[in-house]
């Protein structure tokens, strides 16, 4: 036993290279630029061109063309808008509803019992299945897809926020605030929520990444956003039948989708390293 290696004790967790974070930020910036300007510069890529069906990548069509002769490059670049919109909107909806429910449940015991039972029940239904069922009942469209993806994510976020609030509630400064007679709304808004923001932002990144993946999965299964407005998911779905002949229809949007989600997750991990109280406690000890 020459090398006494209790790694966790001897060395703190190595700081992950800043390279990964910088690259992620760069990738996200590019995708967001694509989302904003793609449709303006290139259009939606809906022009059908029967002469150009299933052509491999070339100087004319950088990412090749699909079965209707549409330019996969244009559709991928413009499709960023739909995917980014779904990711951001879902994160906002989920955090607003789930976060509020979680904070309230964490602070008031009677709400807790109701909300957590409901959350348990909803979480028992596999998320993607609940989402496709919701889309099919509510009818297609961007808003429906955002709602359908949000519903299964809300209970998870509520549960997380609740546990964060429960641990904050026990801290001495809350007791102090109560004893000097602060009102409950003031305690919630001035003391609890600001301290929960860190974890909330971590959760926001994960929800955003999950939502982008879910949108792609819904489109892939044929119940996502309508095909006349490209999204990475429905471009990939359009290549499903032709993947032996024309793998590029799936490859390029698939690659972009993966890079995007990966970048968001890397940033989320970095945020979590900063904000997770358990990790912070471990560092401090």
């Amino acid at each position, binding site marked *: 036993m020459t090398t006494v290696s209790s790694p966790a004790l001897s060395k703190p967790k190595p700081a992950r290279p800043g390279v990964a974070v910088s690259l992620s930020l760069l990738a996200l910036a590019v995708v967001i630029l694509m989302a904003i300007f793609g449709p303006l510069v290139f259009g939606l890529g809906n022009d059908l061109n029967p002469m150009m069906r299933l052509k491999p990548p070339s100087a004319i069509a950088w990412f090749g063309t699909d079965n209707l002769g549409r330019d996969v490059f244009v559709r991928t670049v413009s499709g960023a808008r739909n995917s980014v919109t779904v990711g951001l909107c879902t994160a906002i909806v989920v955090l607003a509803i789930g976060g509020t429910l979680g904070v309230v449940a964490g602070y008031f015991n009677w709400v807790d019992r109701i909300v957590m039972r409901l959350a348990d029940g909803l979480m*028992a239904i596999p998320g993607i299945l609940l989402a496709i069922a919701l889309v099919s009942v509510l009818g297609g469209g961007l808003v429906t897809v955002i709602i359908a993806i949000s519903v299964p994510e809300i209970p998870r976020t509520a549960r997380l926020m609740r546990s964060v609030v429960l641990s904050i509630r026990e801290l001495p400064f809350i007791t102090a605030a109560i004893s000097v007679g602060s009102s409950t709304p003031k305690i919630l808004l001035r003391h609890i929520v600001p301290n929960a923001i860190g974890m909330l932002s971590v959760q926001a990144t994960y929800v955003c990444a999950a939502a982008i993946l879910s949108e792609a999965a819904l489109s*892939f299964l044929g119940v996502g956003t309508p095909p006349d407005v490209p999204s990475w998911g429905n471009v990939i779905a359009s290549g499903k039948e032709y993947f032996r002949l024309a793998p590029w229809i799936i490859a390029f949007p698939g690659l972009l989708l993966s890079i995007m989600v990966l970048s968001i997750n890397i940033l989320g991990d970095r945020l979590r390293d900063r904000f997770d109280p358990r990790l912070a406690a471990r560092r401090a000890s």
Partner: protein
Amino acid sequence: MSNFVVRRLLSVIPIAFIVLITVFLLLHIGPGDPAALIAGENATRDQIEAIRERLFLDRPLLEQLFLYLSNVAHLDLGQSVYSGFPVLKLILQRVEPTAVLAVSTLILSVLIAVPMGVWGAWRAGSAIDTFLIVASVVGFSVPVFVIGYVLVDLFALRAGWLPVQGYKPLSSGFWNCLRSITLPSITLSFLFSALVARITRATMLEVLAEDYIRTARAKGANNRRILIVHALKNIGVPVVTVIGTSFAALLGGVVITESVFNIPGMGRLTVDAILTRDYPVVQGVLIVFSFVLIAVNLLVDLSYALFDPRVRQ
């Protein structure tokens, strides 16, 4: 111990009720008439009325809910609008491929992920560990269907080692079945083992920082003894927990994987039912998938008692 088991068993009841009520309400939250939704787009007025009567959709909502729950309690999940067969029968026909895929993915993932997570934590900060961290983030960032198509391209189309799509039932022979399920399982394992490896690594790091590990070291225990006797015993609970909590993701992945590989399982049944607007089937599949999930999480919780004697008290 028995107290814990009984309490946990009882806690399933409200969850199951909420699932059933949610699934029941699904048809009623939409903008349209539920009877027309079920009847499909080409139904005549008479057909819609017949469905309304048969499914009691003309009764008050609470009474409908009661009838629905009572039917489910009698294992009657209704009939497919599309084929007219009982929903339960349709589901039972499709259980095998889904169960084989889920179980093989579970086994494969645990075999890959747990040793990787333990190894990564044991050598924290090393190249292996960094590789593990990167691999697990990539694993749950790349969509299941993208991984699926890449693997099909490499191992089925180019190398020709494995079938491109399709499923061979167990009755056609174990090896045939295994061959047809290999690529789908590997595909889905990327996601699932990424989740499990991440948690295993984090837990192992925590365990290695515990006082009893230091004590064991101080008493002169060697690395192997510390790893096997002291550390591994204590990562059982969190690892089993993550298997339970990510089982929902596994089931979701099953649905997508079945679609990529053309496997006629419950996932395909769901997607086909959605596309043909066969709502009784959709509801039935949702109920069955949810109940499987509830049962898995129940088993996970009950297994705590096995891994951790403290729970028994």
